[in-house]
């Protein structure tokens, strides 16, 4: 037992690099202060721990309980009994105060708050609405939510995942809105994770994903607190992962990808037009290259004669078939996109101009590619960015459709669209159909789908999402 008593402190003292030990003699037993370099705020350790101990040096301190009562004034102070507790606190940036050879210690929250300051998220810039974005610090992220949801119903359940990283994960929901079954399902899935480390929230997303679905994204993600709050108010559950600025939300529906945060701050007509453009350009981006190939190869009768002559005159000198040509164009654009994403930002802009304009123009002038194919490829590539969460997936689907259209023509395209649709229609996440409110058709939810109605008309929360309280506002608010 004696051996055990010594072990906790000794083990901690053998931590090695980064350990800071400060011993202060008191009227009672000597007090040891242990902290981990870079994880603690030096000022907090000095002001809240060392200074307090020094001031109380003339008192007779003999136990951790006395340290807790007389010295540790910090809000987050806590007595730790087991080694595991101590280690966890220590690694998280707490300072541990040992009194003599006592096996218990007091942990004081001295975590450093150093990190990126709150700024507009680079992935979702808005011209209207809040500009704040989540950061890597979980505490700050929770604060951003708490600032906006001031109710006792806002609940946060904390869990730790990762054998080595021991990452803190917060599951947030509004108790009186979110369905308990959904919350339990999320908690159960997170608790069941047994992995060496969680580096980012996308790790958690892959565990929350429907196991049958490997292609479509089934977990929502955002960097904006106002978006998370609106989703929580619709009965969703948010998952914050320490170290990640991206907060996850479930259940997720495809329609969320055509909704922009700005839609809620604009007039409904403007928002509806924006959403219509987004869905139209996404569909056009997906289908246009395949239709171009199919029409040219098999169903050219559909193209009006004048168009056909224009296309034929520009494709005539091209050494490739329409199918090969379109594949080359799309792959070329995908290479440019990939390179652009990884290029240093200084070179990025100029190189992307060189890539897009010079390469495209040069290829057309050299007679390697035709202007209509380059134009369709470019239009398709740009259009996909109107649905930012599914851009890469649609890029892949677009290539598949071009392949099928090139081999099987319209027949193949219709079949593959049916395959795709029936697959997507069958997807469900936490009991919510992925394509709701289109399939199944939920009229009430359509008020915030493509054609957005006024906020005062949206009496109910989305019915596609399981929840305990479907009424968003009283009908008397309707004007």
């Amino acid at each position, binding site marked *: 037992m004696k051996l055990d008593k010594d072990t906790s402190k000794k083990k901690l003292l053998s931590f090695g690099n980064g350990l800071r030990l400060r011993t202060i003699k008191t009227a009672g037993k000597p007090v040891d202060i242990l902290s981990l370099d870079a994880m603690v705020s030096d000022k907090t350790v000095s002001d809240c721990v060392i200074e307090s101990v020094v001031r109380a040096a003339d008192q007779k301190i003999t136990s951790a309980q006395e340290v807790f009562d007389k010295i540790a004034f910090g809000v987050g102070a806590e007595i730790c009994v087991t080694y595991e507790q101590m280690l966890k606190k220590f690694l998280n940036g707490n300072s541990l105060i040992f009194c003599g050879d006592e096996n218990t210690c007091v942990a004081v929250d001295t975590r450093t708050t150093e990190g990126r300051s709150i700024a507009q998220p680079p992935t979702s810039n808005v011209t209207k609405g809040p500009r704040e974005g989540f950061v890597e610090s979980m505490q700050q992220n929770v604060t951003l939510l708490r600032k906006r949801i001031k109710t006792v119903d806002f609940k946060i359940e904390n869990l730790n995942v990762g054998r080595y990283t021991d990452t803190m994960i917060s599951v947030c929901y509004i108790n009186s809105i979110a369905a308990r079954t959904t919350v339990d399902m999320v908690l159960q899935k997170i608790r069941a994770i047994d992995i060496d480390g969680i580096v980012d929230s996308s790790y958690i997303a892959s565990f929350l994903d429907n196991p049958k679905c490997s292609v479509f994204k089934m977990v929502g993600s955002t960097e904006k607190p106002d978006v998370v709050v609106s989703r929580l108010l619709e009965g969703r559950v948010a998952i914050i992962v320490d170290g990640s600025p991206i907060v996850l939300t479930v259940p997720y529906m495809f329609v969320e990808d055509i909704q922009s945060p700005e839609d809620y701050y604009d007039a409904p007509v403007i928002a509806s037009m924006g959403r219509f453009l987004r869905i139209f350009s996404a569909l056009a981006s997906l289908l246009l290259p395949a239709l171009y190939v199919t029409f040219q190869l*098999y*169903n050219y*009768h*559909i*193209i*009006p*004669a*004048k*168009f*056909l002559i224009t296309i034929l005159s520009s494709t005539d000198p091209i050494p490739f078939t329409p199918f090969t040509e379109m594949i080359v164009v799309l792959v070329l654009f995908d290479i440019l996109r990939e390179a652009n994403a990884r290029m240093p930002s200084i070179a990025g802009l100029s190189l992307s101009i060189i890539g897009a304009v010079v390469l495209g123009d040069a290829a057309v002038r050299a007679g390697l590619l035709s202007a209509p194919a380059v134009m369709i490829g470019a239009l398709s590539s740009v259009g996909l960015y109107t649905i930012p969460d599914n851009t890469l997936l649609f890029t892949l689907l677009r290539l598949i459709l071009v392949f099928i259209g090139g081999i*099987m*023509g*319209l*027949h*193949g395209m*219709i*079949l593959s*669209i*049916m*395959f795709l*649709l*029936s*697959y997507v*229609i*069958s997807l*469900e996440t936490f*009991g*919510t*159909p992925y*394509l*709701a409110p*289109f*399939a*199944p*058709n939920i009229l009430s939810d359509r008020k915030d789908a493509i054609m957005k109605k006024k906020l005062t008309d949206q009496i109910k929360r989305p*019915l*596609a999402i*399981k929840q305990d309280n479907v009424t968003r506002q009283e009908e008397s608010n309707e004007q």
Partner: protein
Amino acid sequence: MNNKIKTEQVAMMLMLIVPVGKYLSLPSVLAKGAGRDYWISIILVFVVDFICFLAFMWALKLNTERLSIKDIFDRTIGQAAGKILFAIMFIYIYLRAAVIMESCLELFSVTFAIKTNWFAFIIPIAALSMFMARKGMNNFARLSEMLFVIIYLSFGMMLFLSSRNANFTNIKPILDDGFQPVLETALKNTFWFSDFSFMAFIMRDYKPEKKYALTLSGAYIAAMAVTVFMNILYIALFDQLAVQSQSVLSKVSQFSVKLTTSGRVDWLFVSIMLFTLFIKATLEFFCCNECLHYIFNVKKHKNPYWTNIAVALPMIIVPVFVNVKDNIFDLFSRDGYGFVFWIIQYGLPLFSPLMTYIANKKEKEKVIYPRRVEE
């Protein structure tokens, strides 16, 4: 989210499935029998169909215990007779699906002048059918819901384009050759109707809602009206030549577009209409699959691959050796052997209210506690 099939979904399925199969080779076959009055034959068969449909809707209402068609058969006519009925149903639905597929291939080659290899054509469809059969009836319901607007827009556009060139005086004089050829044609061609038979397989998953009868019968009447109008339009466009067109869907709008200015934009609508054909074919595949489940006592949640393959393989291979379309057309249209399936087309729906009532009564008496847990 409730995953039961909704009334609107069934209504949309009906509106998609009823008209489309009647616009391929059937008009010319009917025109051979009843001349320009063949659309009256269609109305006659539809009237009988509608009576059966009403009876079936009543059965849906009476099915308070949400029994499946198998449960109803088991509790009324017994397992053996039930299996025989399922076997007949399987053959009926399978033959219809096979003919639709061959007509679809023909539609493709007639429309786009592309001779597609049968295997290249049918294997992807069989794969799609297998995939959809595994997803269940709910998927068909949602798919119909999703595609309904775009398909009916195409439908509308096709009818609009065609009707500009139609001469509706071609349908006159009505009943010039008397009523008998019309009646005979109607009786001989019943095989191609009764498109609501798929509803037998939704009994368990569908709970009639408020005004379900109005919605469903409205949808059925609308579907019938569209079908009749399309066929009148066909006569109005082709008059004496109506007997000759093989794939009506791609022919009706051929005079209405100017190649130089708009291209054959109507073919784009034909292509969109193909969605409906595929939905119909895959739904029939699904129903065949369900029949096999019932015949071989496969539990609902299992849906083994072998039943999928057992339906898909003949669909792929049989037409290689047998000219399904011509033989079945001849058998059930010219020779009038369609009556062998009347037990499924008319007998089953007409007796379904009585059978459902008895089966539900027995179920209520049997299950006092514990109640059957709904899946």
